[in-house]
């Protein structure tokens, strides 16, 4: 990537998980004409800001959701407190088998 040495390109398609499709849909909705809450350039900037180690460790859509979240915090659309509380709620729902 970026002109640096790398292995061969993986050319096979693979099935996307439900959460990955949701992340994709979320970007479409947030960046659309009705909302304009993120540009693709902000998405790229916040992916580049991950740093090489985190970039390599995360999967494609993990990078996306990380970047979308960063952008919404930077723009003041959500607060860190709201994010933390919602993540706890979702974890609890998951633990109860509701997800």
């Amino acid at each position, binding site marked *: 990537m*970026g*002109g640096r040495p790398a292995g061969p390109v993986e050319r096979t398609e693979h099935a996307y998980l439900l959460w990955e499709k949701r992340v994709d849909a979320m970007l479409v909705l947030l960046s659309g004409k009705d909302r304009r809450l993120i*540009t693709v*350039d*902000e998405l*790229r*900037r916040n992916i580049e800001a991950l740093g090489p180690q985190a970039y390599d460790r995360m999967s494609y859509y993990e990078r996306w959701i990380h970047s979308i979240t960063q952008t919404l915090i*930077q*723009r003041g659309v959500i607060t860190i407190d709201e994010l933390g509380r919602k993540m706890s709620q979702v974890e609890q729902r998951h633990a109860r088998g509701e997800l």
Partner: protein
Amino acid sequence: MTVDALQARFRPGDRVQVRRAYPLGHVRTPWYIRGHHGVIERLCGAYPNPEELAYARDGLPRQPLYRVRFLQRDVWPDYAANAHDTVDIEIYQHWLEPDERGVP
């Protein structure tokens, strides 16, 4: 997007050099092409500057965007295939300077 003729600094066939600069931030000009020489293949239009869009600003005025053609063997020192192979890269005007070496 239409481009004001006064705004576009280069025309197809002009020889250019990509600026060799490494600022922080979101830059669309690939690292591997910075400092290299190429030829304007076409003017693609003018678009808000992605370096500004990345920070939620409007990116105006629009920047002319060019497709610039480079010889693969110039870009990759160990390039072993056809010597005439090229790579086209879309680069914004503010990353391009006239090629000061003159016509070869």
